[in-house]
């Protein structure tokens, strides 16, 4: 199906309001009990598109588009809409601040007790653990909120009461943003391993696609990662505990984000004293999932929009700088290992195996996410991207998006209940708890669209769009059809379970928010100018050249005093060709079409002349 972000998003907004805005009050929660991550996701369903897609903006009552006003009618007229958003935002910030006003980043019921997905409760101490997902989601939410407030504040200049309220929410949003950035900074980790350790073996196994001797792989890996290693050792002291032996060149290493504050996390000394810096229990090992989640959040921090709007204060800018170094090194690390070796890439060797020996197609998707992001910074080349297209196609096939579900298909677990990750370290405070990531389909949608946006190769972009559209099809069929969450996600029964069954009719904000992210990416992809190749321009030029020449001949033969339809026709042809020349470089194929139309009309004249000349 053709992805129509604006239409889809408005449909989703209507559905969100139908379930979340009842009798003038905002209702938190859905399928999962309300928690700091889920509620941020729920709010972002509205706020994220509204602050990233210009014609869906809600921050200036006067410029809210007509169809947007209609869709958001339940919130009130165009003056009320931004006011409700501000109220809901204020409510969110209040809910997730403790009695001292300290922001809270807990996972609540997103922490699964058993691998099977049943949600028997974790201990109170575990429920109070900060989760990197919450930091990242909060960074995105706070930036969206600050951008919104930035535009909205001057609008309410004259209403002192409202102005005070907005200023209050702005300052608590800023506080939450700083705290989230601080959390992200403190959960960055580096893990080293002896080549003989189980995790070292796993890493080598993944890298050694050519099957050469281990010594050579270690040597080459060391060479290609030497800059990353040197900068980690020299520039990055926070988060890299003194026990991490980066000086030892014989050790393998990986960097990224743990699932929460690591057990060896250091204090950050350049932020104000009023931010609590609690110690954590998370094992100091990068999780691919949380790494990609953190990279995404930091990406929003480093975006041109954040800079242009001047959303960060001095303290946040310092934190952002520190995060940028880590973002950069992590990008570089994963993008290097994804493409490591001479022949086949480790990334092409699906499924990816992480250093703790877990394998999943989902991990391959996460690694390709990093690769796509690297393309933005132009460190990966267009050829790399074209090569990665196959990976996306293969993942879509293996993930049962472009192929059918078989009996007892293990691939179904990718989507529901999702890929289970053990949160190592949490068992110190109670039973082992897990995290489950069930966003394979929306993540594939987002990444293929991102790749399509960046691709300069017509064929590659086309193939990526095919995958993206198939994924959207898959997701559209997983929408809830009835009940309170109708129009939202997720009802996997029809698509994934041939045996039937019934889905929870309440919406999953986790999945819905991720679909929204995909749609926002689609909108930004469409904003690019269409791809063009020299071949297309050449082709248009050839057509134009013939048409121009034929037109010159016709004008040469024309009676200088002719005012008949023939004269009008020739003028029209001339205008068409002028227009074609004008758009030749931006839209060569449109220019071709115009040239063809001119050629066809010119040929009509020729046929007429020949036909008439016959009788002479």
């Amino acid at each position, binding site marked *: 199906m053709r992805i129509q972000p604006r239409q889809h998003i408005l449909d989703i907004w209507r559905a969100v309001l139908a379930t979340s805005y009842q009798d003038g009050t905002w209702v938190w929660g859905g399928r999962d009990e309300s928690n700091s991550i889920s509620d941020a996701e729920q709010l972002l369903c509205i706020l994220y598109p509204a602050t990233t897609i210009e014609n869906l903006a809600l921050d200036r009552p006067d*410029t809210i588009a007509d169809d947007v006003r209609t869709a958001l009618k339940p919130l009130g007229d*165009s*003056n009320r809409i931004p006011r409700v958003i501000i109220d809901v935002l204020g409510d969110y910030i209040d809910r997730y601040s403790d009695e001292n006003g300290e922001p809270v980043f807990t996972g609540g019921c997103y922490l699964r007790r058993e691998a099977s997905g049943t949600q028997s409760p974790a201990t109170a101490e575990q429920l109070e653990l900060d989760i990197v997902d919450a930091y990242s989601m909060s960074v995105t939410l706070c930036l969206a909120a600050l951008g919104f407030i930035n535009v909205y504040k001057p*609008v309410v200049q004259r*209403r002192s009461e409202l102005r005070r309220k907005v200023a209050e929410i702005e300052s608590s949003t800023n506080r939450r943003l700083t705290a989230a950035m601080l959390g992200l900074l403190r959960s960055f980790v580096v893990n080293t391993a002896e080549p003989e350790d189980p995790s070292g073996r796993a890493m080598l196994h993944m890298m050694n696609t050519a099957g050469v001797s281990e010594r050579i792989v270690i040597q080459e890996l060391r060479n290609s990662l030497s800059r990353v290693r040197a900068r980690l050792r020299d520039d990055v002291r926070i988060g890299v505990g003194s026990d991490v032996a980066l000086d030892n060149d014989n050790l393998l290493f990986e960097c990224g984000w743990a699932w929460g504050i690591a057990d060896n996390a250091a204090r950050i000394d350049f932020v104000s004293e009023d931010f609590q810096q609690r110690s954590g229990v998370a094992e100091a090992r990068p999780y691919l999932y949380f790494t990609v989640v953190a990279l995404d959040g930091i990406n929003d921090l480093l975006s041109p929009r954040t800079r242009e709007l001047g959303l960060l204060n001095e303290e946040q800018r310092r934190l952002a700088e520190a995060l940028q170094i880590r973002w950069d090194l992590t990008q570089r690390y994963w993008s290097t290992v994804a493409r490591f070796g001479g022949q086949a890439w480790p990334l092409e060797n699906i499924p990816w195996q992480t250093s703790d020996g877990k394998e999943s197609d989902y991990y391959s998707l996460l690694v390709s996410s990093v690769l796509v992001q690297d393309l933005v910074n132009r460190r990966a080349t267009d050829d790399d991207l074209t090569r990665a297209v196959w990976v996306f196609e293969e993942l879509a096939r293996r993930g049962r998006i472009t192929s059918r579900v078989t009996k007892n298909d293990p691939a179904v677990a990718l989507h529901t209940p999702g890929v289970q990750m053990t949160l190592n370290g949490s068992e110190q405070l109670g039973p082992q708890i897990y995290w489950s990531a069930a966003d394979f389909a929306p993540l594939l949608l987002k990444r293929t669209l991102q790749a399509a946006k960046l691709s300069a190769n017509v064929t590659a972009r086309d193939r990526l769009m095919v995958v993206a559209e198939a994924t959207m099809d898959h997701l559209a069929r997983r929408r809830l059809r009835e009940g309170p969450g109708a129009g939202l996600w997720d009802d996997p029964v029809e698509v994934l379970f041939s045996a039937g069954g019934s889905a929870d009719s309440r919406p999953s904000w986790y999945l819905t928010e991720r679909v929204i992210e995909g749609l926002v990416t689609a909108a930004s992809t469409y904003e690019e100018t269409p791809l063009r190749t020299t071949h297309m321009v050449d082709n248009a030029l050839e057509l134009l050249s013939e048409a121009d020449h034929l037109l010159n001949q016709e004008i040469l033969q024309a009676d200088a005093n002719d005012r008949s339809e023939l004269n009008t026709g020739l003028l029209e042809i001339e205008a068409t060709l002028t227009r074609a020349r004008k758009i030749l470089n931006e839209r060569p194929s449109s220019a071709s079409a115009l040239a063809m139309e001119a050629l066809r009309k010119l040929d009509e004249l020729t046929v007429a002349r020949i036909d008439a000349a016959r009788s002479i």
Partner: protein
Amino acid sequence: MLVFAASDKGGTGRSVTSCNIAYRLSLAGNDVAYLDFDFGSPTAGSIFEISKIDRGADHGLHSYIGGTISSPHQVDVRTASDRPGLRMLHAKAGRLALFAGDRDGAEFSSTAEKVRRCIELFRRLDQEFQVCVVDLSAGRSHALHMALNATAAPEIRSAPVRWLVFHRWTRQHIVAAHGLVHGNDGLLDEGVRAGHEREALQDSIRFVRTAVPALNSPLAADRPAQAKWLRTCNDELKQLALRNRLGHSATLGETPVEPVLQWREQVISDADVSGNIANAATVKAFDELARNLTDDSVWEGL
């Protein structure tokens, strides 16, 4: 509540829209007075289809403000209208009283004495009716001047006063409506001179867009390119409106193009809609205007 209907240009549909708003307000159970202050050309009688005051009354508002009579002629639309549809009474409907101008009355200049008589009238009618709709002449008229001076008087201050500025959805009308309110010697300047507080007065003004073409209708354009052209023009008008401070936050509502009103200025009744003569969207727009007009939360503004 006193509602003043103004417009910079003639032909904006100000009178016919305010008559319809008054009618819808009375249907909703309000006692409504309609005062025809369009002194140059009294037309309200004909819109409500009351033939005996078709071109004005014998002892109408002109005579009252001129000081020759002590109380202006008043007509109950429900009993006097020639149109059977308007005479039918809902049980819950309120009164609808028309105060017409004099037959062949003309525009006259505003004096302190005339303003005093206006104050007297507004004060009395505000006590008697829930909503008084006062239809003012187009442009920076004497009627507008009197209304601004009268409403600045302490006797009137306690009554909520709302100003509606009507304009059609075209380039010239948008610029003109802006000029009427924000321009030199416009409504705000004159109001401040009369003793109003500028911000409070500005908060009590809303624009009404009339006869706005429906671009989403299948009949909006004959060809795709034409539709695209219209839409782009519409977007530019929106930008223009915004630059002229006529955005959504300053607008009370809009009315669609209504074929019936293009051919005859009249009140559109529910029967016209159920008889498939008038468009349902038109009545809906009038209803919404009437509702927004009396909804305080809409007037909170920014």
